[in-house]
């Protein structure tokens, strides 16, 4: 079974070399400016003066999306093994999964109703 992963390891190694070479390309071959670093190193805002500190806080909505993502990701992950064997499980297996989805569907409905999915 482990032989399957030789290809993965080799792809990882080759891919890392290629991508690292690419990303560092401009650092090696690129031009270097010597003067006026202060202006050049400013954050780019289309020539306008910087609009303030960068790492301000942002809407809690994005965080809610991430929470929902985690929960549904786990749900999806539970479905993959089921999708492999559901033929052998037959009708009971189907009912198991329907119950599972129904309970989580209730969660989705709650979040929906509460307005956590609404962007205003």
């Amino acid at each position: 079974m482990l032989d399957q992963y030789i290809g993965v390891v080799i792809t990882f190694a080759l891919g890392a070399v290629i991508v690292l070479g690419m990303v560092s390309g401009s650092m090696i071959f690129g031009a270097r400016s010597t003067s006026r670093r202060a202006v050049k190193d400013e954050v780019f805002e289309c020539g306008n003066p910087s609009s303030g500190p960068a790492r301000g806080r942002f809407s809690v909505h994005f965080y809610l999306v991430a929470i929902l993502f985690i929960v549904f990701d786990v749900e999806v992950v539970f479905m993959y093994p089921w999708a492999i064997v559901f033929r052998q499980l037959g009708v009971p297996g189907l009912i198991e999964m329907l119950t599972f989805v129904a309970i989580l569907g209730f969660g989705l409905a709650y979040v929906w109703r509460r307005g956590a999915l609404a962007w205003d």
Partner: protein
Amino acid sequence: MIVPTEWALMLSAVLFAIGVIGVLVRRNVIVIFMAIELMLNAVNLSFVALARARGAVDGQVVVFFVMTVAAAEAAVGLAIIIASFRNRTTVNADELALLRG
């Protein structure tokens, strides 16, 4: 290509201890949380190693459930951190003695 079970269990022990140290040493609630995740993973590792030693997959199924619990825990735990940060503007565990009144 067989990994000795003892080695995997030792790695698990070391990771668990690192998690414990992290919980004790750090004061940032989120980093403490991450150290707890590390401890959970150490336990997962020993489940997987022992499942392999027994040649049965039930240990792996338990890991499945541990992951689910970790996901639920992360969702709620981080929500608590956000809610408390909103009131106290800190994530320092020493200053977050919420239940002390």
